[in-house]
Structures are given as C-alpha cells and as structure tokens.
C-alpha cells in the first residue's frame, strides 16, 4: 500500500517540506524497513513505514509442511531470537494436539528461551547504542552474545537458526558439561551488565539522547497492541510469563521489570533489568533441573484433530509472540497465523516520532527493537 499522496506543505518560513526516503538501504533501519518521511528541516512532520521487503510467505509455507517440519520456518522469522519462536510454535502445536511436555523438557525450554532473551537484548543494546553513536557497547555485548551462541551450538549444533524444539518435547538432552558452562556464564553475566550500564546509564549524552524521546503513553501502547519491553517501559506490568505462566516459569522467582515514563531511556532500563532477571531465572532453572524423559509419547506422524484450532502465545524478547493454528485432520496445518511482536510494535512508530528530529527517529527505531524478518514474515 502506498502512502496517501499529499503535496508538500509550506512551512512557517515559506519553505517547502522535504520528502525523505529513509531506507530500505539505510544503516539504522535494522534490515529493510523503509520509512517515507516528510521533514521540515530536520523535524519530522510525518512518518509512513513501508514494509514487505523481506516478505517470504512464511505463513503460507507452514501449510505446505507437516507440523514437525515447520519448526525451521519459525527460526527465520525473528532470526535473532529463534528459540522463543520455536517455543511459541511447538506450544501451539502441542495445545492443538493435546501433547503434554515432560518436566525436564519444560525446564530445558525455559533455559533456552531465557538465554535467547539475553542474546536478543544484547543485540538490541549493541545496535541501539551504535545508532546513538556509542560504538563501544557493540563490542562488549557481542563478547557475551558469543558465549550464548556457543552454548546454543553445544546444545543443538546451530548458533542462530536453532531449530531446537519439537512438538512434544526436546530433540536432545543437555550435553555433558553444558550445565556447568551455562552456570559459569550466568554467574559472570550480571557484572557484564554493570559494565554496559557503566558506559551508558549515567552518561550525560546518552541521557540527553534518550530521556523524553519517543514517548509512548500506556493508553496508546495498549490501543496499538504493543507488548513486551515497549509496553512495560510505559508502566504496564504485563508479562505473559507471569500472566499466563508456561513451562518452568511458575516454579521460578523473578520480577517484572517496569518503568513508568514510556520514553526511550525507560525502555532501555527495562531491557537492562530483564537481562538481569533472565540470568536469575536461568540460575534457578539450573538448580531445579529435574531428571526424566525429554519427549512426550507421541505418534510418528502428528495429525491435528479435525476442525481444531489453537492459539498459544509466549513472552518473547520483543513481546508477545503467538501462533494461531487451524488443524483439519491432516499432518499439515490448515492455516497458521503468526502474531509477531515486532510488527505490532512497529505500528506505533509514527506516533512516537512525529514532531521529533531525524536523530530521534534513529533512537526510536532502535528502541522498538524490530526484526524485519518477523515484521514481513
């Protein structure tokens, strides 16, 4: 859909507004987001996001493959948080087919998705900081992200497109020594978060660039269906891990990170808190890790009941990621619809940047934490 065509308006000084095409090839649109901006000097009069440059028809692809073979498609949606995508999808299939996941598998899933949350937030911090001009956090966060990717690699052989869950349970048990390595990482990790915060949190320029920038009120956020850290930064303590606990979350202690101003700085603080909380959750999971089977009893070919439907959502790193699957008695889903947090959160972008400067736009795109693979699917 093309944006509504309007002729450039005259501004106060009798000068014309300029139309600026921001992306799809632009260093800080995080992929192939295209924004059509109307700017008055550097002030943004209007912003119109244009998406679809990474559309791969993933939802249609789901219909062409059996339930088991669809997991890799989910890897490629939010490609920096594959584990949580996997989890939402297999959760939906399990709900549809009535499979009960054994406790050990539930714990492994929680471990993987919290590690994934940390790694996704690390990538967000890296790009957000570099967009605002702070170069160094990028390298610090990638140092830790590397360790997480190593853990993933040891678990399932892949680092990014993990394909690490199956409907009914986990494909592999944790390899020998994994628990110790993971423990070593999470024990060390909070001190690394301190290091990032040392560079940014009280930095004068960082605060100038983020405090009061891209303010999102709780009402607007709720109207647009914004979820995740974006919503929690605006003061709404909504977290599916608490609201509708799944996997091992009912059995671990953690706090929902909430801040109340709804600006870029508060969303930054929320995500920093979430990384600490994730480390806390991982430690508890490692302590409480039960023994036992990792796969439920399930048929060789999984068929959904006729005319069945299920929606299952989890709290991904970017917000509520949900899968709505319709079954028709065959091994393939009849229809699969994804509720991607990035797409929902992106909608609110024009509201947040109208009247701000081009520099703020970059900060706000960073703070929405979008992945275009998930926006376009």
């Amino acid at each position, binding site marked *: 859909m093309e944006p509504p065509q309007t002729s450039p308006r005259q501004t106060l000084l009798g000068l014309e507004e*300029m139309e*600026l*095409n921001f992306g799809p090839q*632009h*260093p*800080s649109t995080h992929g192939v987001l295209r924004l059509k901006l109307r700017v008055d*000097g*550097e002030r943004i009069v209007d912003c119109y996001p244009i998406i679809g440059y990474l559309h791969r028809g993933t939802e249609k692809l789901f219909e062409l493959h059996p339930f088991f073979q669809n997991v890799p498609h989910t890897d490629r949606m939010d490609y920096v948080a594959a584990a949580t995508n996997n989890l939402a999808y297999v959760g939906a299939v399990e709900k549809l087919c009535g499979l009960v996941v054994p406790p050990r598998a539930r714990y492994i899933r929680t471990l993987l998705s919290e590690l994934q949350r940390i790694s996704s937030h690390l990538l967000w911090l890296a790009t957000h*900081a*570099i*967009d*605002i*001009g*702070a*170069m*160094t956090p*990028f*390298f*610090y966060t990638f*140092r830790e992200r590397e360790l997480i990717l190593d853990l993933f690699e040891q678990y399932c052989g892949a680092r990014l497109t993990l394909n690490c869950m199956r409907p009914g349970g986990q494909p592999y048990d944790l390899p020998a020594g994994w628990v110790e390595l993971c423990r070593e990482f999470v024990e060390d990790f909070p001190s690394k978060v301190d290091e990032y915060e040392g*560079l*940014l949190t009280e*930095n004068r*320029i*960082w605060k*100038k*660039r983020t405090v009061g920038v891209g303010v999102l009120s709780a009402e607007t956020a709720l109207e647009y269906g914004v979820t995740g850290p974006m919503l929690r930064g605006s003061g709404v303590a909504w977290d599916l891990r608490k609201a509708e606990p799944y996997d091992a979350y009912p059995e671990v202690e953690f706090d929902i990170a909430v801040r109340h101003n709804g600006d870029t700085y508060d969303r930054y603080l929320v995500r920093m808190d979430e990384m600490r909380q994730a480390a806390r959750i991982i430690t508890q999971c490692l302590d409480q890790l039960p023994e036992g089977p990792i796969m439920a009893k399930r048929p060789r070919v999984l068929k959904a009941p006729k005319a069945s439907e299920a929606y299952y959502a989890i709290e991904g790193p970017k917000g509520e990621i949900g899968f709505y699957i319709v079954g028709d008695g065959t091994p393939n889903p009849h229809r699969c619809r994804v509720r991607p947090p990035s797409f929902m959160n992106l909608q609110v972008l024009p509201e947040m940047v109208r009247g701000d*400067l*081009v*520099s*703020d*736009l*970059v900060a706000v795109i960073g703070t929405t934490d979008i992945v275009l693979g998930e926006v376009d699917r």
Partner: protein
Amino acid sequence: MPGLLEALRDAVGPALFYGAVSPVLKIAVLLFLGVLPLISYLTLAERKILGFLQVRTGPNRVGPWGLLQPIADVLKLLVKEDVIPNQAVRWAFVLGPCLVVAPAFIILGVIPFGPPSGSEGAPSLFIADVNVALLFVIATATIGVYGLIIGGWASNSKFSLLGGLRSAAQMISYEVPQGLALVGPLLLAGSMSLVDIVEVQRDGRLWFFVPQFVAFFIYMVAGVAESNRNPFDLPEAESELVAGYHTEYSGMRFALFFLGEYANMIVVSAVAVTLFLGGWLPPFPSVEALSFLHLSFLPAGLAGLLWFSAKLSVFLFVYIWFRGTFPRYRFDQLMDLGWKWLIPLALANILLTGLLKLLT
C-alpha cells in the same frame, strides 16, 4: 646534506634561497615526511586504540602489527573508481574536498614545531613566524566549512544536503566560542605570533593552560566540534544520515574528506599545544631538579620537536578515546551547548582575564 644546502644557497643567491627555496623545501618536508605519514598512521593508531578499547585487535594482517595497513588503504582508495553522480554539480562536487583539505594544511605553515634557530642559516622548525598567526589560524580554519557545505550541496542528495546543513550550523556556532577562547592566551601573551606566545610561556614559567583552563576547556570542546569528531560528529553521523555530506563521494575524493578531518584534528591539537601547553617547551622548564627533561644531549630543535610531538599525541589519543566512549549529541543539543554555555563562558573568561591583566 648541509653541504648540499649551502651549495644551493651559493648557486641561487641568499635572497632567493631564504625567500623562496628554503620555505618550499620546508613545506615539502613537512607535507611528505611530516603530515601525510602522520595522518595515515593516525588512522592506524585510531584503529589500534579503538581495538584496544573494544576488546578486539584492530588491523593486524598487512605487515607486522598491521603497520602497512595505511599504505594498503591509500592504494585501495587511489585505484577505486571515482564516481561523480549524474545529478551532481560537477565543479562544486570537485571543489568541495579540496576546500576541506587545503586550509588544514595551510595552517600547519604557521605552527612552530620547535624553537627558532639561534644562529643564522640553521633551519627553524617552522615555516613562517607570522605576526598575526593567531588571526591567520582562525581565518583559514573557517574556510574548511565551505568545503563541507559545497560538497553536501553539490552531491544533490538529500542526506548529503542535511549533512551539509548540519555542518554549516555546527561549525559556524563553534567557531565563535573557539575564537573567543583564543583571546585569553592572546591577552596574556600580548602577541599574535605563535612563536612569541610560546616564548612568553617560557619566560613566565607558566603554561597558559593553568591560568586559562576555562579557555582551554572551551577551545578543546569547540575544537572537537570543529573537526567533526565524536561526540560532535553529526554532519557525518552514519546511523542517521548514512554518511552525511560525503554520502555520494567515493575513491580519492572521499579520502580527501577523511584527510581533511584528520588534518583538522592535528591542527586543532597543534594550536592547543602551542597556546596552552607551551609548544615545544619541556614541562617545568624552570625547576632545576627536572632539568633532565630538557633533553640537552639532543640538538635543541630535535628536543623541542620531541616534546611537541609528545603533547600532540596526548591530544590525538584523547580524540580517539572520545570516539570510543561517547554517544553522539543531537543537533539541537549541540547548538544549545555552543550558544548557551560555551559562548557566555568564553566571554566571561575574556572579561576576567582582561580585569586581571589590568590589575597586575
């Protein structure tokens, strides 16, 4: 070598030799043995230091410790295709980068890298001791901004235009506090010649950054903004404006903008060293116990040059350190800082310095 020079002097006559041949030789030596290698190795130093700050190694493939990397970079830039966009205004597009580089190099002509020679005939370590050098520095540095504006406008690209506009606003508003900051040392020294200013610091036994620390601070902040470096690198903010004014430039023309930026860093630091840190003087020149710092076993000129380079390196390191540490200011915040803080502060400093000068 001295024999050769003397032979040359006798051949062309002393008037022509001192008037034309000697300065040209000095310029050639300064450019090709001094500034150009310094700039290219400054890029290597920057990448190495940034690497150190950012838990990585920096370039280490070309030559031992990456020492040949700058040469490889220059070669690459030289053989790259030089693209001039169809819609660009050709003459202005070509003119832009030259206007950035030339003034930076010209200023180096009045910087005293070492003491004037005691005896007639021995070379002094500067090209010219102009009696209005300080004015010359300010005036020439101003020309550089035209290069950025013209380059940004001539590219005929919106991002370049925005970059050019930003640089225009930024440099004009930061030239004011920078110029005002230079008035402080000028009042103290009572001369505009840079050589004189250093000599006053020697005779007064006090580097000017002690009485003029406010001016020094303002000068450095404005200098960083003036040379478009982080945290004031808005005109080329790559995450906002792609590459700002040089978005459409490629190959050697692009390299010229880079050269200009680094030359500007050196110039700003060199002026700061001369005005505030005693130029070629060793620290605490009057303290007996520290007289070994005079390095008197070296020829006088060389010792001065060494001290000058050491002080310059500190400044350049700080520039790079900034880049590894700070996020980028926003356009309007940058203007705020300049007009609301630096300029009033600089004016107050001038007033205070003038009063003190009057009373003592």
